[in-house]
């Protein structure tokens, strides 16, 4: 596996973990979790609780950055309560005035992140924080620049889809054929990035929505960043609601073809 180019003579470099899998998390590794939220009043406390539990159990240093886009349902008020409960060094509130989109939410969040690793995930409990220690372990194991959660490999999977899963599988197959991305789950959004890698990628990406998640991986491959994968389970809790309309399919295809033709 091509490894991220390090100066091979730096004796004190914490990236030496790749030679010694038993190396403890160095005191300087810190993980910033970016949580863009919109109307997540119910889910935010739960996801924060699970994150705190996971990090405390694994002993990794962390912070959670909540980027709320002016939710009208009181998400920010709940976030403030959480900040009081867990401390402002662990829960950072960095809201914005209105719904400005995911890409800019990440950029905004990164500006306030003090960690050297960034974790992005959904705030609606479809991504479970219990996988984060596995992401961290995988990253150290292979000294990866990016670790991506996959629903399609190993014992990764999905709960709560039915017809939708069939469509998604076809879509994923198309992305594999057209883009040959080298990762099994291209549209996933549960990932760990080195901070400087994410910054570099954000500069280069132009798409919106979840096509942007696809573009990040494609660009990462172009720039020769290394990507590891961890199987994750994805729990879709919005029952009965068909979130996959014709619109989504069309925009996905458009995005896919654009990436196909431009990268």
């Amino acid at each position, binding site marked *: 596996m091509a490894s991220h180019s390090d100066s091979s003579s730096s004796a004190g470099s914490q990236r030496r973990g790749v030679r010694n899998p038993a190396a403890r998390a160095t005191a300087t590794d810190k993980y910033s979790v970016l949580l863009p939220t919109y109307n997540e009043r119910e889910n935010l406390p*739960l996801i924060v609780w699970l994150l705190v539990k996971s990090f405390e159990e694994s002993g990794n240093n962390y912070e959670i950055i909540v980027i709320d886009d002016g939710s009208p349902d009181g998400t920010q008020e709940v976030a403030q309560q959480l900040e009081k409960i867990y401390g402002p060094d662990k829960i950072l509130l960095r809201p914005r005035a209105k719904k400005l989109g995911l890409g800019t939410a990440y950029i905004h969040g990164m500006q306030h992140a003090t960690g050297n690793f960034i974790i992005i995930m959904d705030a609606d409990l479809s991504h479970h924080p219990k996988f984060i220690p596995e992401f961290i372990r995988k990253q150290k194991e292979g000294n990866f620049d990016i670790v991506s959660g996959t629903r399609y490999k190993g014992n990764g*999977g999905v709960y709560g889809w039915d017809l939708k899963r069939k469509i998604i599988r076809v879509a994923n197959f198309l992305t594999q054929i057209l883009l040959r991305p080298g990762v099994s789950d291209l549209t996933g959004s549960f990932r760990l990035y080195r901070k400087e890698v994410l910054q570099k990628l954000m500069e280069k990406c132009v798409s919106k929505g979840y096509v942007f998640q696809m573009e990040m991986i494609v660009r990462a491959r172009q720039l020769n960043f290394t990507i590891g994968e961890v199987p994750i389970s994805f729990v879709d*809790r919005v029952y009965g609601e068909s979130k996959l309309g014709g619109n989504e399919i069309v925009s996905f295809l458009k995005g896919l073809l654009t990436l196909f033709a431009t990268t």
Partner: protein
Amino acid sequence: MTKLGQWISTLLALMLIWLCLVQDLLNLGYSQKFHDVIVPLPVYLLVTAGSYSLATLGLRLASFNDCEEAAQELFLQIQEAQADLASKGLKLGSSEAAPGRP
């Protein structure tokens, strides 16, 4: 080169080779049997590629993991979390507790 570029150039290259063979542009003189195989080759390959795709898709759909246990574990943890947070002083105010996104 873009992925589209790679596809186009590969396809063009293959087409040229096939045309050369079919028209015998290199004057290598083939038997009729060889000719009978070469001419319909693109169609054969297309059909094979199509079947392979369908088979792969079918296999992947069939083996798609349905994580029941993950959903149940999550459900239990949600209850644990709500209780713990309430004890730490979290107040959610009065609203219908919806299971997912509003």
